[in-house]
């Protein structure tokens, strides 16, 4: 099977700072990849390079068999790359349904307003926001806005969904709900790349984990192998986490 997303030798520099350095990464269709690493490791920058917000200083990004290195965000969106933001970005003065309809209209190939509206209500039902459809997006709680972001992402009919810290700021119950939603999305066959700090989420969700440190990809493997990798423990997890893990597995 050919890779859905393929980064080869991707670097991104801001002046003298190298935020992402020579990253090679290949994502197969149907994978749920966890992207972890300390703050400032370059995770969001990497997502920005994939979606075209920043252009790669070096290297190429291939998506679905085509070179997408130089595409603009709106073009990437139309090809099937959707992303949610770490800091949620709704259209505040529009209703919840209009927010999702916009995604269906401009990236999801809805032909007219009514079709976009139908699609919007379907996805709002899936994320559990059906009753909020006619509310202004600005009046939603943080947890609801995160779910709105998911619905918007889905309405774009993506092949690849990039989730940037969708669980940050949520309480335990809300995280569990988000987790089951993400599982539901993955079971529809959408490939997911998720940036996440909560190890519980990453370990229970992902088929593979890649670790970024100082802009470099230092490890890639199954969740079990990653938590035992000495480089990952040193760079990110910390020794206390490792001892607790080995004690638990025993």
């Amino acid at each position, binding site marked *: 099977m050919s890779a859905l997303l393929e980064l080869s030798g991707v670097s991104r520099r801001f002046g003298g700072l190298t935020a992402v350095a020579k990253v090679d990464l290949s994502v197969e269709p149907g994978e749920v990849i966890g992207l972890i690493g300390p703050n400032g490791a370059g995770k969001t920058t990497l997502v920005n390079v994939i979606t075209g917000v920043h252009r790669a200083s070096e290297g190429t990004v291939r998506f679905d068999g085509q070179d997408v290195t130089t595409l603009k*965000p709106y073009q990437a*969106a139309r090809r099937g790359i959707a992303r949610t933001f770490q800091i949620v970005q709704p259209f505040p003065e529009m209703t919840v349904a209009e927010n999702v309809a*916009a995604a269906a209209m401009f990236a999801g190939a809805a032909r007219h307003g009514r079709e976009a509206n139908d699609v919007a209500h379907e996805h709002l039902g899936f994320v559990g926001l059906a009753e909020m459809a006619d509310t202004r997006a600005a009046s939603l709680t943080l947890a609801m806005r995160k779910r709105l972001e998911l619905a918007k992402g889905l309405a774009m009919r993506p092949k690849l969904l990039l989730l940037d810290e969708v669980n940050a700021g949520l309480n335990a119950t809300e995280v569990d709900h988000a987790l089951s939603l993400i599982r539901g999305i993955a079971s529809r066959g959408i490939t997911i790349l998720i940036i996440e700090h909560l190890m519980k989420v990453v370990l229970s969700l992902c088929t593979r984990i890649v670790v970024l440190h100082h802009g470099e990809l230092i490890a890639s493997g199954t969740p079990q192998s990653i938590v035992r990798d000495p480089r990952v423990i040193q760079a990110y997890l910390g020794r206390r986490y490792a001892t607790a893990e080995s004690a638990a597995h025993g």
Partner: protein
Amino acid sequence: MRKSALFAGVLFALIALLPLGADAYWLRLGTTVLMYGVLAMAWNFIGGMAGYPSFASAAFFGLGAYTGAVAQKLGVPMLLAWASAGTMALLFAALLGLALLRLRGHYFAIASLVVAEVLRELVNASTDLTGGGMGLNLPVPKDATITSQAEFFFYSMLALAVVTFAAMLAVKHSRLGFGLRCIQQNESAADMLGVNTTMYKVAAFVLSGVFVGVAGAIYASWVHYIEPPDVFDVLYSIKAIVMVLLGGAGSVFGPLVGAALFLSLEELVWRNYLQVHTGVLGLMIVLLVLFMPKGVFSLRMRRKGRA
């Protein structure tokens, strides 16, 4: 949308009856209201829908006025001269938009403000074509009476206002209008959802330019004499914005109502406070914007919300 269109139809039909019972003064005032209505509605495309505070109206107005005037001077029939003014404004807005719309917020506002000044200097300098600082006289039709002239320009301006309004209504309910609303609320998020933001913004800017260009050309033919400080006056930009804010930026009738309200106030104040009229007018604008930041239409909405 159908309700707005119907209401607008009745409104414009009533306005069209004005010449039946009005003297030259009311016709002149009516033509002026319609002209500023066009300026305000056109600004609504870029300023209201896309949320880009453009001060380029004066540039489009002057450009249209001079294009139309020079074309007429060269012997082009009047209607064709107006059309060429619209085309010129369209091309100019497209090129200018591609350059300026990379800027956001205040930077865009300031850049758009300078454009009229640049054009004014250019017109001043190219004396052979435009008459420079001497101004430009337009041909006066020989066999026309004052009343028939006044009625002709009134109906011309009315026709332009109807077309501008129809365009605004159509855009508001189209894919373009939806995309512009997304851009106005969060441009990066719109981009990420697949909205071609650059193209949409340029389209809004072109729409905001073309109708103003034609209005400028009609104005030039109407007053028979133009000079650079008159048609490149920054007040054309500022008044259009104030009118939209007065009427309410969100609604389709806002710009037109704002124009009528503003000009009535101006007329009233000017008559009664000859010495200090600009001061009084300024004060009224400040008070209106302070207490009705979303325009006169917000009063009705608020009452609806309470009930």
